[in-house]
């Protein structure tokens, strides 16, 4: 069953996440998500990988680490080891606003229905829902609210700039 929500709909996940502990290392083919340290160590080799390459930022690894690589990256994953660790929200906002990053920003890890709306507003457009949860249920979380007060990555205008004059 699909666990990935992308641009508001369930879809198949073509990406494989390579964690530093993966014994077999990087597969020869396919779309892969690698850790920041893997990317930094093997950047040149990875540019020749037969498939797309994305980098995963963990809490404590800021987007600035990828500032020079953004044009080469079709996707940046942001890991939530625990959903209560909210650093990833600021990272996504920075990627969208400070760096004007246009690629996919995917939330991975402890990704659950009740955080999706906030994540989406911060600039995430893909959500790899935690394996034990029903992603079709989780999808509802994107529609919790029709009203927002603040500017966000979707609408740069806070509510006081959206009102008719």
């Amino acid at each position, binding site marked *: 069953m699909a666990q990935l929500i992308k641009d508001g709909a369930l879809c198949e996940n073509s990406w494989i996440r390579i964690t530093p502990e993966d014994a077999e290392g990087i597969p020869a083919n396919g779309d892969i998500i690698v850790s920041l340290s893997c990317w930094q160590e093997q950047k040149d080799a990875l540019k020749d990988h037969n498939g797309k390459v994305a980098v995963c930022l963990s809490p404590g690894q800021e987007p600035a680490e990828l500032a020079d690589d953004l044009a080469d990256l079709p996707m940046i994953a942001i890991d939530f080891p625990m959903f209560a660790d909210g*650093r990833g929200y*600021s990272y996504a906002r920075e990627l969208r606003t400070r760096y004007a990053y246009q690629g996919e920003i995917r939330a991975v890890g402890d990704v659950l229905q009740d955080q999706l709306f906030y994540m989406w507003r911060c600039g995430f457009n893909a959500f790899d829902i935690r394996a034990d949860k029903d992603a079709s249920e989780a999808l509802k979380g994107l529609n919790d609210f029709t009203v927002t007060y603040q*500017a966000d990555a979707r609408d740069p205008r*806070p509510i006081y*700039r959206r009102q008719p004059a």
Partner: protein
Amino acid sequence: MSDRLFPNKLAGYLEYMYVYQDYDQRLLDERVAQFRDQTQRYLDGKLAEEEYRPLRLQNGLYVQRYAPMLRVAVPYGMMASPQLRMLAHICRTWDKGYCHVSTRQNIQFNWPELQDVPDILEALASVQMHAIQTSGNCIRNTTTDEFAGVNAKEIDDPRPWCELIRQWSTFNPEFAYLPRKFKIAVNAVPDEDPALIGVHDIGVQIVKNAQDETGFQIWAGGGLGRTPMTGEVIGEFVEPRYLLAYLEAVLRVYNKYGIRDNKYKARIKIIVKAMGRDKFRELTEREFAELKDGPITLTEQEMERMRASFPAPSYSSLKDLPEALEQALSSSKAFSRWYHTNTRAHKQSGYRAVTLTLKKTGRVPGDITDEQLDVVADLADRYSFGELRTTHQQNMVLADVRQDELFDLWQALDSLGLATPNLKLLTDIVACPGGDYCSLANAKSIPIAEAIQHRFEDMDYLHDLGELDINISGCMNACGHHHIGHIGILGVDKKGREYYQITLGGRGDKVSRIGDKMGPSFESDEVADVVEKIVKLYVELRHDDELFIDTYERVGMEPFKERIYGPAN
């Protein structure tokens, strides 16, 4: 039922405070639906306890010792009479007939059933109230001076800025999962700190620059809790239109760099201290530079809309000290005492601001019953433009009372038990719910407050002692603000027994100062004795009508220590 009780809800009310637009109401309704669904999923076993926990906390719902506790937000402490009636209705329908004013100016219900909470929230939403972000690791209710708008000393009305902060912080997507709770307070009075901004994560001091323009001095890194400290100024003069940009910059720095692996080090104060104020300011300035002049910049129109949301009530043109008041003052000693203790000067001539003390001996400090709430709502309508405030000292305020009606109001309040003339006096004790209710508490606080109040029942003596703040917290979380009590009492657990640690010299008035620890802690039945001894020594040591805190600051801890523990070797 609530529709019958509250026809047209707030029509005709809320003239003097922010009125919800359609979108504000829609947001609240959507929140109720969301929380109803979350609670149902939890009850159905689809949401694990640890997944539901932060969700319910962000809606003010704690699971307490005997029942859940629901904390309802009272933004910057302001309410209109229909809202009071709704609180009374909730007390009757879903609780045990009373509620509690917290030190964040919020209202707490101690006995709701979990499955009823969505219905309670729906009832609250019908009068523009909610429990959003009253707990959890997010931005909490913004607080201010309970005399905002009527305080003759303020240089601006803080409430429009509080409302702007409320909207900016409500469901701010970036700051819902902060390292720890985050509290903001706004103060507009120079040289005094009625909002306690010095002990907030962010304190906003409204100031005037040399050109007489209004701006904000931003403090960061204050807080009570386990490691109490006062904040430091990080922004000297932030222009009004940049207020939210600056706050967002501070929050982003905190969200990225706050400590997350140790909840006792997770408040902003720890990183401000650890990296140093200058480094923290540098990081903030870097974020601010990007946000400044971006869309978050407040528009003139929006600032004006907020100012217009808090107009002065339609005061009558009256003189101070009218004949009716003078007569009442000279004929009733009890009224006169109450007048001098519980009412204060007002911006508008002919009016006074009245504090309703929720501190009658034998009652839990800050508790109020459904019947009292209903009558207070009527009194607010009759005497104070239908408006009421809560205070961080757990009292209530009718801010706009005609002086010639004070005697009538006093009589009504007196028969309700809300006119105890002890405002700011020793028995006006601030106390958290403590171990009687709270599952976090190490010790009880309510019986300690009561024991102390019983020792000081002689009103003449109390008035002779003058202003003296006693604050009691049942644990390190410091909900009773014990660090800033002139006498602070903290419940601690020692091998399963309740002990109490005493601090002296804290203050939260002109400046915020953290109290000094006196020495070894005491058993519960010793605390009132110790307080009595401390007070007796103060009376011996004071010069003329010197206040306790001034005597303490003059003589220091030693004489008190020696009196309590005996001479040092």
